[in-house]
């Protein structure tokens, strides 16, 4: 997808750029970033393709549908970006969302329809689970992929245990949940606002604060970061706690959208989507590199693709295949750019 060449509409910016490209493109690539440019091009291709196949694809209603559908995966992709910049990975985000979904609905029901308590409990549960992930990784010295793989299974199981494996409660008689799922602010669905706000907050954190600098530093070179006086453990545990909390928020939105707490359905596979989006968006899986802007572009691309395929009536099994291919393609392109030597296991 992102292999598509960049369009050549030049927007002048005068910063020098080290990569070897034609002079006209160089300035443009520098200002937007090569990766983002490929994503925009890919998005344009997808939009033009599906738009010409089905005019409804470009209708305002359908765009909102795409946005809403992409919100849950988008939230997870945003925090996954933070974790990946740290040089780690969280493949338990889907299970965390599922657990939070169940918790929100069950606490809501058992407290006599208190939405704030339900949502608060879900967010707390998410934060706790995230802290647990971080603690296992830091203090148990467990590789992040393995630790969160364990989490993927365990949190899913936990959600199934507390819910008995069934959808729990019904929340759409409550105005808060209704507002979350169907409300609009200034013409835009609430869900999209939530994604935009969370993404903006994380973007500001990463780009404008010393916390963000330190996160990039520890992902880029952990020894250097440590010797520069950065408390690595604190940052890593916080990153996982943030991930847990935002995954829980995604779980709450899942509850609102489906009307009840879902232990598995709706959250399964979100880890794949979030990692795919982050990788497509330009995160280096080695850490130290990645932006929220890139990830959001990738989320939009994935959302548009998924919606377009659905609108065209293409089997969802194929969509899974497409997603797997995209993830591999994203990483292959990244490694080619890094000129990774094709010997042995990749770094």
């Amino acid at each position: 997808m992102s292999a598509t060449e960049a369009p050549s509409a030049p927007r002048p910016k005068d910063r020098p750029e080290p990569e070897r490209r034609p002079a006209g493109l160089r300035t443009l690539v520098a200002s937007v970033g090569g990766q983002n440019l490929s994503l925009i091009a890919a998005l344009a291709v997808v939009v033009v393709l599906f738009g010409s196949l089905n005019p409804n694809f470009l209708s305002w209603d359908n765009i909102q549908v795409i946005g809403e559908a992409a919100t849950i995966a988008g939230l997870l992709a945003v925090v996954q970006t933070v974790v990946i910049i740290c040089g780690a990975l969280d493949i338990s985000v889907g299970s965390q969302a599922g657990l939070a979904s169940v918790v929100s609905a069950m606490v809501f029901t058992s407290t006599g329809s208190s939405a704030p308590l339900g949502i608060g409990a879900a967010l707390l549960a998410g934060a706790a689970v995230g802290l647990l992930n971080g603690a296992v990784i830091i203090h148990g010295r467990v590789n992040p992929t393995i630790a969160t793989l364990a989490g993927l299974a365990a949190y899913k199981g936990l959600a199934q245990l507390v819910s008995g494996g069934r959808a729990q409660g019904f929340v759409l008689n409550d105005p808060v949940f209704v507002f979350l799922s169907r409300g609009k602010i200034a013409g835009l669905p609430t869900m999209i606002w939530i994604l935009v706000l969370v993404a903006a907050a994380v973007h500001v954190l990463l780009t404008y604060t010393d916390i963000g600098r330190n996160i990039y530093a520890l992902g880029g070179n952990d020894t250097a970061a440590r010797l520069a006086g950065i408390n690595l453990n604190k940052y890593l545990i916080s990153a996982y706690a943030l991930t847990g909390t935002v995954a829980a928020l995604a779980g709450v939105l899942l509850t609102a959208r489906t009307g009840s707490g879902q232990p598995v359905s709706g959250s399964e596979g979100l880890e794949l989507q979030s990692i795919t989006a982050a990788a497509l968006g330009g995160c280096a899986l080695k850490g130290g590199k990645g932006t929220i802007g890139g990830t959001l572009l990738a989320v939009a691309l994935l959302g548009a693709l998924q919606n377009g395929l659905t609108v065209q009536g293409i089997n969802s099994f194929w969509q899974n295949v497409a997603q797997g291919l995209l993830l591999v393609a994203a990483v292959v392109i990244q490694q080619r750019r890094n000129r990774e030597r094709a010997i042995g296991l990749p770094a």
Partner: protein
Amino acid sequence: MTTPEPPPATALGLTAEHVSKSFGSVQALHGVTLTFPPGRVTALMGENGAGKSTLLRILTGDHRPTRGRVLLDGRELHLTSPIDARRAGIRIIPQEPEIIPHVSVAENVYAGSLPRRAGRRLDRAELHRRITADLSRLGFDRVLDPDRLGSRLTAAQRQLVEILRALTGETPPRVIAFDEPTSSLSEHETEALFELIGRLRDLGIAIVYVSHRMKEIFHLADRIAVLRDGALVGEVDATRTTESELVRLMVGRDLAGLFVRQHVATERVVLDVRHLTTDAVRDVSLTVRAGEVVALAGLIGAGRSELALALAGDLPIRSGTVTLNGRPLKARSPRDAIEAGIGLAPEERKAQALLLHRTIRDNTTLVSQRRLRRWRFVSRARERALAQEYADRLRVRAPSIEAEVRTLSGGNQQKVVLARWLARRPELLILDEPTRGVDIGAKAEIYQIIADLAREGTAVLVISSELPEVLGLADRVVVLQNGRITGELDRADATEEAVLALAMADDLAPATAATTATQDATTTSPDATTTDTPSGANR
């Protein structure tokens, strides 16, 4: 592999012809022409960074020369990988043997070409037959058990495995290069190795022998080639030269001109270490005053870097006290040490100091964030101003401070590391090998920076394996050997001989006292992440 071109000089053996190599802006080799004849031991000498390793890597196919060519018996070789070189009969015994830990000696030796039976099953009988034959042919049958696991071998045995690898294989060896083979061997093992090298030479194999140990070189070598700053400065007959001539060839240039000699040390003690013991050093006491440059000399592995890391809060202190500006310092993390006013520019700048994919600006301000932020927001303008100020002051050569650090040369990268600490204004700055892998121009600039720092009243502790640098920079030299301080020399008393004698006090005989005896024992830094900028590359 070969071209029909007529051989220019019908020299037998392995020849490097006008070989040049540059890494980015650093030229590691300048037109080196050198022949390693068969049946001769040719020693390759030179200071740290003189280009020995680069030349070896070119001869063994690991690097490709920027200019020039490599010939074997007058025929040009086009080596694109170490495998090509191996097929051509060129073998190298690396300084650090590569041993697969959980398989046997036999499988280690034939790794990649194990004998097999139908269905790709390992032919254990054949493997055993082969290893026993090879071991007894080479006289190793007493010292190497073919069934022993790689992880359980001693340093000498590991090296024997590498030698066996070099001597076996489809093509017979024509050239064998030994890269400081004795650095981890005992005296007895060294003798056995020399005996073996003698036999290989008598078989007509061209031997390339890289070492710093004069005694070994005079014992073994027929000819001695000396490299300096990437150029061949002399090729002498081993029987017609002396140690002092070799030292003169190796050092050659007038290093004194590089250093800014001055004495600005005050009486105010900044760092006072008393009876410090860590896992690597024992009972170390030393002081550094404001404006004073103290050099920590010693062999690789003496515990100098570990001492630096302990002072910087990164390694635990077992006992003893550290006092900084009269206040006891109990640093439990680098953060504590930095807060107290200690800065450390570590040994491996790529692995331990730099964020290669971030800008000069990000790298410079890494330890000064607190000064630049308001609430938690970093002021981009003040950040840029600070980075620009120090980039200008240290004359970092780059398109702008927004350039990624990986695109810079080694010297400029080191300046960025220094800029980071200068921007923080530490009381005590520890510099571990500040000029490693840095070209001579940048070296001079770094020496100037160190002198300026001292003049501003910073206490500076420099760790260096280059003796001329130690002598040129330091007001005082503290020598560490095997984790303990063996002596302290004032500038007036510090000579290369005196420092070396202390560094090797009960290690080797003083006969080995070459200028460079302390160097080169480290391996290439792990720089797999980046482009071809040289850090370990041009050693």
